[in-house]
């Protein structure tokens, strides 16, 4: 266990990105971003950045914020279970020691509960689990979001009878509507076009929903069937529901979200 030294940035960034890889919603680390978000944060010094090193390799990293909040906590996910459990305990212990030395009243971790080893270690050390602050979002540019998802998932797109799909969007509670109608073309190249001003567009499958429902569908894990049941989504003709469901299931983000404390605002 040692404190940060100049030159550790690359290894810290690489380890952080590996630990966060299974989740959605985090900021991919670069050396510049890490330096600003952690090293240059007021009240943080090199002694507040702890590293677990073995054989010249960084296996764990944690950063302690000035109010006793743990900004980052990563232990190499590829370590064997027993070794990783021991490293987690060491890192928690070192953070507590540092927090006591700084006379902080307590420590707060904002970590994924899905990391069972970390969750067990924190509970066994007497940490109470509380609900974190709410992270919420809204889709500002549905065309760009769908375009990115369509391009990233094109290899997984199922064979469909439809070659295009139209989204008719209303703002719902969202205060700003950029596009009221989008055309998702699947052939020959997947692309999303803004056809808000068109009156003549393909009718083979038309979805009607508001931006909040679209946010739930694409980013919040809410299913097509659930939105249909709650009348938040209408698909015309009804015979196209299975086709639309297949397409949207592929496009939706399924990973669980985790926002590290250092990405907070």
């Amino acid at each position, binding site marked *: 266990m040692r404190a940060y030294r100049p030159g550790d940035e690359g290894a810290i960034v690489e380890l952080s990105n590996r630990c966060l890889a299974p989740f959605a*919603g985090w900021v991919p680390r670069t050396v510049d971003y890490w330096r600003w978000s952690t090293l240059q944060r007021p009240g943080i010094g090199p002694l507040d950045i702890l590293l677990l090193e073995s054989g010249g390799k960084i296996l764990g990293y944690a950063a302690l914020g000035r109010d006793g909040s743990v900004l980052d906590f990563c232990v190499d996910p590829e370590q064997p279970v027993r070794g990783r459990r021991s490293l987690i305990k060491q890192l928690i212990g070192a953070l507590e020691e540092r927090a006591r030395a700084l006379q902080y009243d307590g420590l707060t971790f*904002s970590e994924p*509960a899905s990391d069972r080893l970390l969750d067990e270690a924190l509970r066994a050390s007497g940490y109470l689990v509380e609900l974190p602050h709410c992270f919420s979002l809204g889709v500002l540019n549905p065309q760009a979001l769908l375009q990115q998802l369509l391009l*990233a998932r094109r290899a997984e797109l199922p064979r469909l009878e439809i070659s295009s799909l139209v989204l008719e969007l209303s703002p719902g509670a969202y205060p700003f509507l950029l596009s009221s109608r989008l055309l998702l073309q699947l052939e020959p190249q997947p692309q999303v076009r803004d056809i808000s001003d068109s009156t003549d567009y393909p009718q083979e499958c038309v979805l009607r929903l508001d931006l909040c429902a679209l946010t739930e569908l694409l980013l919040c894990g809410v299913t097509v069937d659930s939105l249909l049941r709650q009348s938040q989504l209408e698909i015309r003709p009804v015979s196209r529901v299975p086709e639309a469901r297949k397409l949207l299931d592929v496009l939706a983000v399924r990973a669980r979200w985790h926002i590290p404390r250092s990405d907070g605002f």
Partner: protein
Amino acid sequence: MRDYAADLEPHILKILHASFGAKWGDAEFWRWKHSSRPGFSPSDVVVCAAADRPIACFHLTIRTIRLAPGVEIRCSVEGDFAIEPDARGAGIPQKAYRYVSPRLVSRGVVVRAGFSSRDLFEHVYKSKFGHRMPPTVTAQYRKILSDRALHGKLQEFGEAARVHPWSQRFLRSPLTVRLKVEGFQPCDLVLTATAASCTPSGTGRPDLTIKMPYVLLTAARLSPFRAMLTVLESMICGRVRTAGLIRVMFRGLRARRSGP
């Protein structure tokens, strides 16, 4: 509405402190978070003014977030939204939200996000901004480390116990409980009919002494099964010790018989 300029900085800080208190942070913290941030644009800070007097401020930062392997989007993370108390209720949040929207589109932003309390989410972010909460695995884990914070928590607990009707009969004379929590200095929780206090332990003889591990203090907030396991484990391992328990139990029985 106008974008950030250096002359607005003292006003922004004043508005932030009026809304969140001095604990929000000082000028150095504001500059680190906003104007000195790599990639900062003056349009990331919007100040609303009435009759040339700044009355509200709104901050954002544009970040690239990862949704899945190969899917990274530009996200405007927004917060530090503060309005002077006498300017509230005029719809400034919605106006500011709409005001920055076209500009964010031109900067390639795809989604807008914010952090808030649950209450603020329900009353503002969800109903006024149409935001939704994605399914998160993030949990907050909290532990007390200092004697001062432990005393505060124990005093809160003592206050809650003291106001119970049965406690009022029980506390006709003061009750001193000496708590020896592993990892902390011993302390005395003194309960009377009118007050509860927790201080570093004195030299007097307490009515009850309890030695326990810290995890036992958290048992009340655990699930019943986990709490029972925690208590049993602590007792079997001999980490819980009491002195004076029988005397206190007799005192409780007498209080119960004596009636109101």
